[in-house]
């Protein structure tokens, strides 16, 4: 075993008394920064918002020979001095203006495959008075293309430590951790900093001078010359951004992505549904009847089920997005969609979140992190819930079946109309919000097209896991709390069985005692009594009472107090609407045709039909546009770090839904329907 050097002993001493040094990875996008971070930290990393911001950063722990390091992966930026939010955030982070403590060391990423540009970037970063280490990344890729960097010579040229690394192969990763630790230990003296500045071009140097300086350094420290970019990739680029072929490829890829989320996720979702249903049944059968059992079954298990049911779609979406991003396609897709999306004030990157929102708004909103500009991202978050998600489908099916019974073509058109209405409302709302609340010049598309690479399944799995955990830990807890509160509102106060219910139960007992009675008849009578009791409970609960109070608000749309209760409970989640209607209409849950029949004959207190064509149509329009998803609001609160935006979203969407529903009803009434 080698004897310990005095410096190693010093490191150990420092480690026994002080917090682990913190290093910030600073680099341009697509330079192998995140792959290097993954190599350094492995699974000991987590994603978190940089304190006080909505910008994500990944923080992990890396092992050096004599201790551990805290590594922070800052957002990829093109320059530290740029006046864009990401650059400002990196500056603030390096200066210790945000976060609990400023990093001790800046690890400047220099992409070996684009070395001249990386040197220019490094020259700015090195002007900060802090210990710096240069990590030359993608060195294996560069060597394959005939280019290599001499670390010692570069270190001499720049006046700081240089380590040649490859995140893909792990080359130089432990050396980098050691170099960072040493830099943290030694700090930087004024003399050393002045010496470093001496190596760098003047701060006032023009880009041409900087380029000349970078080329001089390159000539001194590098050997070989990178082979030119492949003509094949240029051809692929042309095809993927072609107005026709590019659009076709885009539609194909996005259709596959959408179909995967929509179709593939249903299997784990059904499995989760079954598991939680079985757990609920077990608790119901095991525990004595009472409020505690109700809380466990309907509040907690129901709430957890309502949270984790979104996980398959979220995990699948992020797995696929990671593969697409890693492959380099996502930048081309954003390029292809940009022209269309710009008309509505949104960037090309907004297309994927909006498409994903057609499966579920939650993963769609989470994927807005792909959008670099804060205003663009916020606008996309605000309009994403307009897209018709899967939770709206049961309501569409029910109401369209009511409106167009026996007319399948019209029913099909109505379905398309619902999806189109949501999408158009979302895009027009984006147009409006970008010209009012989020006014300001849109960031024009200046998009780097990263080289095509084979996507890493390992990274995609890691991203999937990370996103899933993040969702459960942050949004999931809030969703669960909301579910429990909503359950309480709809379950309490307990309503004593009404005279009608008691009478129905007495009749059931009489029938059951008769000889040769058909058990199905008894079961049906029992069901009728149970449904009537549930209906009384629904109307007598806190939510039911709120429904009665809120009824005047919905009267112009043709809703009576029962329908108002159903609409209000659906603010928990849209799909709750159908089950509430079943209870209110006293319908057996296994018989959808029976529900349709009952609904079509349902009458108001004054004896008129409830579900007339104008009322059913206004209800359909209301559901297409209204913000009826508390989990989404909870997630928007988390993503925007403010209640202002989810409240605005709720008021705008619900107000628009009310207005459009009223207009549709009035038009149909005027037309004599």
């Amino acid at each position: 075993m080698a004897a310990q050097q005095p410096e190693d002993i010093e490191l150990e001493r420092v480690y026994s008394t002080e917090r682990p040094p913190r290093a910030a990875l600073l680099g341009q996008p697509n330079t192998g920064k995140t792959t290097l971070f993954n190599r350094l930290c492995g699974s000991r990393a987590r994603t978190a918002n940089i304190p006080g911001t909505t910008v994500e950063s990944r923080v992990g722990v890396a092992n050096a020979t004599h201790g551990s390091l805290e590594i922070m992966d800052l957002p990829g930026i093109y320059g530290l001095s740029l006046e864009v939010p990401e650059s400002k955030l990196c500056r603030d982070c390096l200066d210790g203006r945000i976060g609990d403590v400023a990093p001790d060391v800046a690890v400047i990423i220099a992409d070996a495959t684009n070395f001249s540009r990386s040197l220019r970037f490094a020259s700015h970063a090195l002007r900060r008075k802090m210990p710096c280490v240069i990590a030359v990344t993608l060195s294996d890729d560069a060597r394959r293309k005939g280019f290599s960097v001499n670390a010692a010579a570069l270190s001499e040229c720049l006046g700081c430590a240089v380590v040649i690394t490859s995140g893909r192969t792990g080359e130089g990763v432990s050396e980098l951790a050691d170099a960072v630790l040493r830099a943290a230990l030694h700090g930087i003296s004024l003399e050393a900093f002045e010496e470093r500045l001496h190596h760098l071009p003047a701060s006032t140097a023009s880009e041409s001078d900087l380029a000349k300086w970078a080329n001089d350094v390159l000539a001194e420290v590098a050997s070989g010359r990178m082979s030119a970019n492949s003509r094949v990739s240029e051809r692929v680029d042309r095809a993927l951004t072609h107005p026709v072929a590019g659009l076709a490829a885009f539609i194909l890829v996005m259709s596959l992505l959408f179909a995967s989320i929509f179709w593939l996720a249903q299997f784990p979702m059904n499995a989760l549904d079954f598991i939680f249903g079985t757990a609920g049944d077990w608790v119901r059968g095991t525990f004595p009847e009472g409020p505690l059992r109700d809380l466990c079954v309907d509040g907690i298990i129901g709430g957890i089920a309502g949270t984790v049911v979104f996980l398959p779609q979220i995990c699948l979406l992020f797995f696929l997005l990671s593969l697409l991003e890693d492959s380099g396609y996502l930048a081309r897709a954003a390029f292809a969609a940009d022209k269309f999306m710009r008309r509505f004030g949104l960037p090309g990157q907004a297309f994927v979140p909006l498409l994903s929102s057609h499966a579920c708004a939650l993963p769609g909103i989470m994927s807005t992190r792909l959008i670099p500009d804060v205003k663009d991202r916020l606008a996309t978050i605000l309009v994403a819930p307009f897209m018709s998600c899967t939770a709206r489908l049961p309501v569409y099916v029910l109401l369209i079946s009511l409106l167009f019974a026996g007319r399948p073509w019209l029913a099909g058109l109505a379905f398309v109309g619902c999806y189109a209405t949501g999408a158009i409302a979302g895009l027009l709302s984006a147009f409006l919000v970008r010209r009012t609340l989020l006014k300001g010049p849109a960031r024009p598309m200046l998009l780097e097209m990263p080289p095509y690479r084979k996507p890493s399944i390992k990274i995609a799995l890691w991203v999937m896991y990370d996103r899933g955990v993040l969702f459960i830990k942050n949004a999931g807890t809030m969703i669960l709390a909301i579910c429990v509160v909503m359950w309480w509102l709809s379950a309490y106060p307990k309503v004593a069985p009404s005279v009608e219910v008691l009478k129905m139960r007495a009749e059931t007992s009489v029938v059951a005692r008769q000889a040769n009675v058909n058990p199905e008849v008894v079961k049906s009578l029992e069901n009728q009594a149970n449904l009537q009791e549930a209906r009384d409970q629904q109307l007598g609960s806190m939510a039911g009472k709120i429904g009665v109070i809120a009824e005047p608000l919905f009267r112009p749309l043709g809703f009576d107090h029962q329908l108002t209760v159903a609409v209000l409970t659906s603010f928990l989640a849209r799909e709750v609407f159908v089950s509430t209607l079943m209870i209110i209409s006293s319908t057996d849950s296994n018989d959808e045709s029976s529900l349709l029949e009952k609904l079509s004959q349902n009458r108001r207190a004054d004896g008129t039909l409830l579900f007339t064509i104008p009322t059913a149509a206004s209800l359909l329009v209301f559901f297409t546009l209204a913000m009826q998803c508390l989990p989404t609001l909870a997630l928007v609160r988390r993503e925007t770090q403010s209640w202002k935006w989810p409240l605005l979203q709720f008021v705008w969407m619900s107000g628009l839904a009310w207005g459009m529903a009223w207009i549709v009803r009035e038009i149909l009434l005027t037309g004599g329907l």
Partner: protein
Amino acid sequence: MVFIPQTQSNNGPHSGGRIPLTQLSRGQRAVIDAESLISLADADRCLLRAMGIHESCELKVCKAGAPCIIEVERTRVGLCGSVASKVFVKPCDGCPAA
């Protein structure tokens, strides 16, 4: 003095042979000179420079038109029409289209 780019006049001899990036054809090479980026907004100009598209650099058009894709050094960058039409370049003589 405000520089107002006008496609026609900038095509003439007084413009020093500079044309908007959007007028280059695929495979054509050009040089960005001292005044090429002057009509861009400050933020866009700084970002382009940081991305490696700076004065005195040579570029190649990978996808012509608006939006377009250019290659500088080894970086490919997609530019929307509004930016590309304000980047004036000098086509390289003797650089045949690919």
